[in-house]
């Protein structure tokens, strides 16, 4: 009778230390998972640049032309997303800007192409497209 009671005590005694290392092992496994992820952020950045479809220097040149034509003060923000009408240009100014773009980049903008230009980014994209056609 005494021996019978002794063994369950030993069994239960043996179970407890076994449980603890199992938990430790599982923790270690969960920590190692983030290390396995590859460098995804850099791929995403590359994809962003391709979708813009206009070189930075083209956008800068267009900003310079717009700034000179509208006589904007030096602190006025002109970037890719600026809409020309928001910067204070009326349709005559837009025609002059398109003429200056034609002169600078040595391209000819068609009538319907000139109508679609509403922002600096539009103009830069159109310029890139026309330069590609010319170069082809």
């Amino acid at each position, binding site marked *: 009778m005494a021996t019978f009671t002794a063994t369950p005590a030993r069994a239960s005694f043996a179970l407890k230390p076994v449980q603890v290392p199992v938990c430790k092992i599982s923790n270690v496994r969960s920590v190692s998972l983030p290390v396995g992820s590859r460098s995804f952020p850099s791929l995403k950045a590359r994809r962003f640049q391709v979708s813009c479809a206009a070189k930075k220097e083209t956008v800068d040149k267009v900003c310079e032309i717009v700034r000179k034509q509208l006589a904007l003060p030096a602190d006025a923000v002109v970037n890719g997303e600026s809409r020309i009408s928001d910067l204070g240009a*009326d*349709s*005559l100014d837009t025609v002059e800007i*398109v003429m200056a773009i034609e*002169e600078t980049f040595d391209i000819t903008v068609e009538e319907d192409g000139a*109508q679609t230009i509403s922002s600096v980014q539009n103009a830069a994209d159109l310029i890139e497209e026309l330069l590609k056609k010319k170069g082809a």
Partner: protein
Amino acid sequence: MASSAAAAAAPSKLEVLALLRSLLRTAGGFHDYNVREYTKRRALDGFRHNKDLADPSAVAAAFSDGKSQLEVAKRQAIVYSLYAPEVKNVMELKR
């Protein structure tokens, strides 16, 4: 008379801008610096001066005036090209 006046109805904004574009393009074709710059300046000043016209007959008159000036400029561009100067104007020399 009335039919010809009705035929010259007020031009749309796109037609007006297309006329300005043709004038500036024709102006760019002159070989003489002075004539080129004058034509560009005169075209822009003329359009800006008439920018706020409201009366449709006045707009139509200004538009037809602009069209006749465009014809003059095109003819003169051809004539000037026959006598293109050999020496570039000092303003055209790049520093």
